[in-house]
């Protein structure tokens, strides 16, 4: 099961409405995934030399201020944080790898859920509507959003196992399906220096794309290689800082539908999620073809 949704705005004038347009999309997919939900939103890009890191802690009373003070003192860096529910968005001029390594050593219970220039990730167990409200996303503005509603079938209902999976470089990925060669791919990627936080198959797909993009590939090139190397059933919806993509495996049995107007591009597991968007009645609607890469935003 599971539901995935993605919305990419082509019309910049709609950016202030991104959060309110996306909300009914995610909630409509609650019946496909009532256990947990997660979203990635691309907004407020940081300046050159800065990195934005999304952090989460299971304890909603966790003192992020102490972490901030200790991190600034240890790495001698500038920091700004904004706290939303049990998540914290941290912006810093320190090197991303140093911050992550410091966090892993000093605060191993803090989960690093995303990093890049624009991406912010929020995910939590519970019904999608509650999760969305808790992270105050209804009035959020931004360029694109990707979301996932999870019905756990193969691993526990935990926040760590919730999508989206982000593995750095502003890339995030949501997935409907199951991968069959994720163990060997994970081993190979670990040898390339990629670190994993879970045993989840989807995290491997995200890490694979991140690795490709860090090696100089465009999003399209990373996906072309992914079709050759990632085995299993999948419909992926992928976001990067400027890009939005959808790809399905060669058998294409995991549902997906896409719709496009002059103002936006949307994908969802089922059309009823897209039906809430303004202009959906006149949208061009089609089912994405197998092994075909659909990309917007990135040249």
């Amino acid at each position, binding site marked *: 099961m599971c539901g995935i949704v993605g919305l990419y705005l082509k019309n910049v004038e709609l950016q202030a409405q991104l959060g309110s347009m996306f909300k009914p999309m995610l909630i409509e997919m609650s019946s496909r995934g009532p256990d947990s939900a997660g979203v990635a939103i691309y907004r407020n890009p940081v300046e050159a030399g800065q990195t934005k890191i999304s952090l989460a802690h299971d304890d909603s009373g966790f003192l992020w201020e102490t972490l901030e003070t200790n991190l600034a003192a240890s790495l001698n860096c500038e920091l700004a944080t904004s706290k939303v529910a049990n998540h914290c968005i941290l912006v810093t001029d320190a090197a991303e790898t140093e911050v992550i390594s410091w966090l892993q050593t000093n605060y191993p219970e803090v989960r690093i859920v995303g990093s890049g220039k624009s991406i912010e990730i929020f995910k939590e167990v519970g019904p999608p509507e509650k999760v969305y409200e808790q992270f105050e996303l209804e009035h959020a503005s931004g360029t694109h959003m990707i979301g996932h509603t999870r019905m756990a079938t193969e691993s526990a209902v935990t926040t760590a196992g919730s999508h989206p999976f982000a593995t750095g470089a502003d890339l995030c990925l949501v997935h409907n399906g199951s991968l069959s060669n994720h163990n060997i791919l994970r081993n190979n990627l670990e040898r390339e220096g990629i670190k994993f936080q879970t045993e989840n198959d989807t995290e491997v797909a995200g890490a694979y794309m991140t690795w490709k993009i860090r090696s100089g590939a465009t999003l399209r090139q990373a996906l072309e290689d992914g079709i050759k190397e990632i085995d299993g059933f999948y419909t992926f919806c992928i976001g990067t800082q400027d890009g939005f993509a959808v790809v399905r495996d060669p058998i*294409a*049995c995991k549902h997906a*539908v896409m719709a496009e107007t002059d103002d936006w591009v949307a994908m969802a597991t*089922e*059309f009823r999620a897209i*039906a*809430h968007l303004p202009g959906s*009645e006149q949208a061009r*609607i089609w089912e994405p*073809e197998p092994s075909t890469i659909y990309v917007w935003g990135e040249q």
Partner: protein
Amino acid sequence: MDMLDLKELGVRGVNSVLHDLSKSRAKSYQINNPMGQHSIACGLDATMQVKIEGHVGFYCGGMNQHAEIKVNGHAGVGLAENMMSGRIHVSGNASESAGATAHGGLLVIEGDASSRCGISMKGVDIVVGGSVGHMSAFMAQSGCLVICGDAGDALGDSIYEAIIFVRGKVASLGADCIEKEMRPEHQTKLKELLEASSLQADSTEFRRYGSARTLYNFDVDNADAY
């Protein structure tokens, strides 16, 4: 024509009205605000006209008998699944498995149909104005699948006695599916279907595909393979 607002009545409310076979019921209905919901106008069992203004979700018109359903929009997965008779016409594209296992009636899709169109069809006639995706007419047993555009990979894999007409290119044929001679009776059938569907296409531009019938029976020469 009676108007049914799906947003107000819900799918069950709308379908209950359509299932009411009392003498006082209307002969034609228009469903507004379908919002991509599933199972709209499923299980109809009477002569009536149903017009759906907008996009529908999965299984629209499933198990239909006698009714004429028109969807002005896109149709989701499993359109007209197991239709027995009547007619379903979609103005847009259709997602995968359109007309799956359908026994009778006519299904018309003006746009493209996705993968597995006509999978295991058992007597329905399907006319697609655009192209169809991979594995279409997989294990198709009876009826005609008319494709005015192109066909994806593995067309007619393991096909029985269904007939496939394709105007455009075929990416590849599935196991035991071959091109066959287009005889006058096939031309006549194809013309009838194109006319019934109101789609404009020249029947002489089509090719016919069907079963080579080599998978029908156990072949003793293959015994070693088991």
